[in-house]
């Protein structure tokens, strides 16, 4: 909501409150100020100047040297290139050291050797337009033959030495301006010489001066414009619609500050209004808040309409089909409408409220919407067939062309304003082109209606056209406001002389609304706030917001549908008592569940171990593209492809919920690889998402590791996995080769178990997959199920007595088939020992000279110890012998 403080002052006089104070106080009472800007800051030292005299620049054929009265003792000389000024004109003069919108600074200087002490300004240079801001200032240039530049110098349409009386074409001849006098604003009386014959003509062309040569149409007795000559702009380079803004404002004097003249002497406040307070999307609503905030009286105005007789009831019928969708429809009729620009004060207020002025009738509807917060619509009543307004939902197949020119297909749940044959307006959203206010509109029906917010919201969303009106309606508006607003609109019609208001108001109430009644319960309010605000203070605050108090009964104003409970009353009290005056206390609510729970402790521990191993934490998106499953070579029939789909994703890349974290990890590894980071070791404890029967998801967490780099190999990442499992004291761990996982290298992938419980996968990514990601190095990853890790986590440790007796170590190297795994050998060694073996450590694997082809030598260090005595060499040897015997028997592994 954009608010003009000058407009606000009309309702609550706050002229002595600084912008800073206004910002702080309004923000702290609940109307959050986003910005305050002063348009005048953009326009400095620009004043009204009166042109006292003009002379041709001695060194230029299109510049004028002007003397201006700018309210100072001496006239000021300014050189301008514009041709639309005349002696006596009032113009905006940017003096030496002035500032124009857009940060343009003007200083004195010389133009082709002639001193110029500033600049005369156009509308555009003031940040304005003729179309919307000052329609009267539109410029119509005549085609000056002395400005003619033929497109083809070889073939000029007008000879360079054209003389008065020469024929241009048909009835058009050349004529020389002998005199040009301003008769009224924008009207000039011109005396022409046509080869000795004198003609006199009145024209609106502003660019005529003594000595100019023009094209004169002897038949229509008019001076030709470019359009009349079918000429191109390039042929008359200086005959343009842009020129100095000739002021036509009342009560202005040379020297007056232009910022004030155009209403820039204002503060424009932009508020963030929360959706529960549509009443504050209006000058009056904000005035009420300001009145309560600054404790100043509010000057509410009751609109008065004189009327011109007649009776609206005889002219229009209004029917509402569904009172839930349209609780109230209020309308008034205006006849003999004169469409014209609205007055400067209204245009200024609209402009300072961020709305572009259009014409008097449209401007009135916008003005009332800003002032009262009630959207208005104006119909060209001649386009309403049968004089019958029907508020109904659209019929199957109906369409309407809206004011923005688009053809809209309507559906049967969209509320429309219709005549007997067709929709003329999408209710609360946008009017129809078929009943648009145009230049010759004579009868206007002003609609001020109340619609169901949810219905308007759905229609606007379905048509993808949120308008100023719909965004207000969708928040739920005050049904009591429709009458005031339509009265105000008609009052303005009379004030502006825009037409004659027919007597009577059509006010159809299809659904009654009862005021909300609450009880004033000071104890409960203070109990909720933790304050001791007096009851008198509560009453004062509520009354300042127009709540009616009768004993302890509160009648909530109709525009405050957000207030329905004592907690809402508490907020009203707190807002004006001051949130920051409420004391600070510490609360109850302690529970036994406080602190980290067991799951969270394990999560924290996992992060700690990963980081200790050198892995960096990453955060990846939970949603991925379905094509990512292809990138990890997941088979077409894989169950993992059964992902939850987002029906309205931002794009394909974020369109499904991942069932595996692998693509997320690979994406980040790839990104780092592409950034030319030499190595990366990453981890994430992230969720995956699986469909559940009830429509929601199982969201199991996965600890994923990913790495690449010079020192990285299968055993590096396996080592980290082992460290994690050891840290959690997970027992009975087995790594089993997995040649079937399509994402991984078939020879370098293992699944990890604790007993029978599958914990996850570790391995090198398949070169196919690396290639899919465009990575030309070995990628490694591990995926561990958090739930499985948590389930297999070992118990807290119990102290084991430290060994009292020394251990004996023996190294053995056995030769076996290459296919025999180290895991099998280790397992066999453990089973072969007779109870003295405490540890087995692999220390060498050798193939080559001395070992038969197809064989390998594997060396282990065995640690043997008894808990109750020092071992003898014989005892140790007996165990080793038993181990070797089993190795040979089961695996064919013989001592080397």
């Amino acid at each position: 909501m954009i608010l003009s403080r000058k407009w606000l002052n009309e309702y609550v006089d706050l002229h002595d409150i600084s912008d800073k104070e206004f910002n702080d106080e309004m923000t702290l009472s609940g109307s959050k100020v986003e910005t305050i800007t002063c348009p005048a800051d953009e326009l400095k030292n620009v004043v009204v100047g009166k042109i006292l005299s003009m002379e041709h620049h001695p060194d230029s054929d299109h510049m004028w040297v002007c003397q201006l009265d700018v309210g100072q003792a001496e006239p000021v000389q300014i050189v301008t290139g514009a041709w639309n000024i005349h002696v006596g004109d009032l113009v905006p003069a940017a003096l030496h050291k002035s500032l124009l919108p857009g940060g343009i600074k003007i200083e004195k200087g010389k133009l082709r050797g002639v001193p110029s002490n500033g600049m005369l300004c156009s509308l555009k240079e003031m940040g304005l337009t003729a179309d919307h801001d000052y329609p009267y200032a539109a410029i119509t240039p005549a085609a000056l033959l002395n400005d003619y530049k033929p497109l083809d110098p070889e073939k000029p349409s007008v000879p360079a030495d054209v003389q008065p009386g020469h024929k241009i074409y048909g009835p058009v001849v050349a004529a020389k301006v002998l005199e040009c006098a301003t008769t009224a604003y924008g009207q000039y009386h011109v005396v022409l010489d046509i080869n000795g014959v004198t003609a006199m003509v009145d024209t609106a062309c502003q660019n005529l001066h003594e000595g100019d040569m023009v094209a004169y149409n002897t038949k229509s007795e008019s001076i030709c414009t470019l359009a009349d000559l079918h000429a191109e702009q390039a042929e008359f380079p200086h005959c343009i619609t842009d020129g100095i803004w000739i002021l036509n404002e009342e009560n202005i004097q040379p020297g007056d500050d232009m910022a004030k003249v155009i209403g820039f002497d204002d503060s424009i406040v932009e508020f963030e209004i929360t959706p529960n307070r549509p009443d504050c999307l209006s000058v009056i609503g904000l005035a009420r808040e300001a009145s309560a905030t600054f404790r100043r009286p509010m000057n509410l105005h009751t609109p008065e309409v004189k009327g011109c007789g007649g009776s609206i009831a005889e002219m229009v019928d209004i029917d509402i089909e569904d009172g839930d969708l349209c609780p109230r429809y209020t309308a008034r009729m205006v006849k003999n409408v004169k469409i014209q620009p609205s007055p400067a004060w209204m245009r200024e207020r609209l402009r300072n409220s961020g709305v572009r002025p259009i014409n008097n009738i449209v401007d009135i509807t916008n003005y009332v919407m800003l002032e009262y917060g009630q959207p208005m619509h104006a119909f060209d009543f001649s386009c309403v067939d049968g004089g019958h307004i029907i508020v109904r939902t659209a019929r199957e197949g109906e369409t309407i062309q809206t004011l923005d020119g688009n053809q809209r297909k309507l559906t049967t749940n969209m509320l429309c304003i219709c005549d007997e044959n067709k929709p003329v307006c999408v209710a609360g959203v946008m009017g129809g082109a078929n009943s648009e206010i145009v230049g010759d509109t004579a009868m206007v029906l002003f609609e001020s209606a109340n619609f169901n917010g949810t219905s308007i919201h759905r229609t606007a969303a379905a048509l993808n056209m949120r308008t100023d009106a719909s965004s207000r309606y969708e928040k739920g508006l005050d049904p009591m406001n429709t009458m005031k607003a339509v009265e105000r609109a008609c009052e303005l019609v009379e004030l502006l002389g825009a037409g004659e208001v027919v007597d009577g108001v059509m006010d159809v109430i299809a659904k009654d609304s009862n005021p909300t009644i609450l009880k004033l319960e000071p104890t409960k309010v203070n109990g909720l706030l933790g304050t001791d605000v007096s009851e008198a203070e509560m009453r004062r605050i509520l009354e300042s917001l127009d709540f009616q108090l009768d004993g302890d009964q509160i009648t909530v104003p109709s525009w405050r549908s957000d207030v329905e409970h004592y907690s809402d009353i508490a907020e009203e009290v707190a807002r004006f008592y001051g949130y920051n005056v409420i004391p600070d206390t510490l609360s109850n609510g302690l529970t036994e569940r406080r602190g980290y729970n067991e799951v969270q402790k394990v999560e924290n521990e996992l992060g700690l171990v990963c980081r200790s191993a050198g892995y960096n934490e990453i955060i990846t998106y939970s949603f991925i593209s379905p094509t990512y499953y292809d990138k990890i070579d997941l088979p077409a029939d894989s169950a993992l492809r059964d992902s939850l789909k987002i029906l309205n994703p931002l794009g394909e890349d974020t369109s499904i919920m991942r069932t595996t974290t692998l693509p997320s990890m690979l994406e980040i590894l790839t990104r780092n690889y592409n950034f030319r980071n030499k190595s990366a070791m990453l981890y994430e404890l992230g969720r995956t998402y699986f469909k559940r029967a009830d429509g929601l998801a199982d969201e199991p967490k996965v600890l994923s590791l990913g790495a690449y780099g010079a020192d990285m190999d299968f055993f590096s990442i396996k080592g980290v996995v082992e460290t994690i499992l050891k840290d959690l004291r997970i027992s009975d761990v087995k790594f089993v080769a997995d040649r079937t996982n399509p994402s991984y290298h078939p020879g370098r992938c293992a699944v990890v178990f604790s007993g029978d419980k599958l914990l996850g996968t570790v391995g090198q990514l398949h070169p196919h997959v690396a290639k899919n990601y465009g990575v030309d190095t070995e990628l490694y990853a591990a995926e561990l199920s958090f739930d499985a890790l948590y389930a297999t986590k070992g118990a807290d440790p119990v102290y084991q007595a430290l060994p009292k007796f020394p251990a004996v170590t023996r190294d053995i190297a056995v030769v076996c088939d290459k296919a025999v795994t180290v895991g099998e050998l280790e397992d066999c060694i453990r089973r072969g020992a007779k109870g003295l073996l405490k540890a087995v450590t692999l220390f060498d694997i050798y193939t080559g000279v001395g070992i038969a082809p197809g064989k390998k030598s594997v060396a282990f260090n065995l640690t043997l110890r008894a808990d109750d005595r020092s071992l003898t060499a014989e005892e140790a040897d007996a165990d080793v012998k038993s181990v070797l015997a089993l190795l040979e028997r089961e695996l064919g592994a013989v001592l080397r």
Partner: protein
Amino acid sequence: MKDQLEAIRKGALESIAGTQAAADLDALRVKYLGKKGELTAVLKQMGGLSAELRPIMGQMANEVRAALENAIEAQSSVLAEKALAAKLESETVDVTIPGKPVEIGHKHAMYTVLDEIKQVFLDMGFEIMDGPEVELEDYNFTKLNAPESHPSRDWTDTFYLTEDSKILLRTQTSPMQIRAMEEHGVPIRMISPGRVYRKDEVDATHSPMFHQIEGLVVDKDITMADLKGTLNAVIKKIYGPQSVTRFRPHHFPFTEPSCEVDLQCHKCGGKGCPTCKGEGWIEVLGAGMVHPKVLRNCGIDPDEYSGFAFGMGLERFAMGRFKISDLRLIFENDIRFLEQF
């Protein structure tokens, strides 16, 4: 003989004092004290002495021997010290050469901040709750008192998983308020951090996935003063004891009264600067007293119990804390970024 002994003493002591190496000292020991040494040779002549002279010469010879032995001992220590000094000198390292690196990984910047915030709440007796990201519309909106026409329900704002709009990706952590009340009943004192999703295109300050931290306290006699006291205490712990806050009325469908909490800009002290976009204040969280309708929706009697709830965006916290200029860095996971924290 006496003269002989004196000569040995004199010569030997001079030689010993002049030695530079342990080997030279050993050679002197042999030369004087060895079996064929000079002193030994003199002693061998003792047999030819008279009975009167023998003890006198014997004593003198012993004195000379002792003197030589002491001198050798002393010189040996000196030489050992010298040798050690030389060895240490040769072992000197350039202490400015970098040490052998021990590479440890880094916690993500955002979770570093999250852990700090969690700790502040844990210290104040809160529990930490976790909940689903695929959520029911009912929990994300309806039970939180969001009106049917609330714009945040639009398909342009929220990611939906079913055509009937019943299942969605949660847009806020606030559904955890409902889950906490339904799961635990009263009293409650919890925070719930987690991922949330909104249909925002990625740019320097937006991401379709981001993180929030929800908080909820429900018990008898919980007041807005408790809300202020708790949040001010938390902010002072996170931002330092000199932090200045202001509580400003706001609107959330699920709290009443509602507020937003601003922190006075640490850079300009409230005067207005680019960091606070000229406002002097930086919004840090939203909060309010749990709406009586919400309590009732969760089976808690609002006439008996009250509570406060709050929520904050984690990304903005982390970006402010570490001066991270672009939100995309957080999800890009460039190792050169990760290793800075």
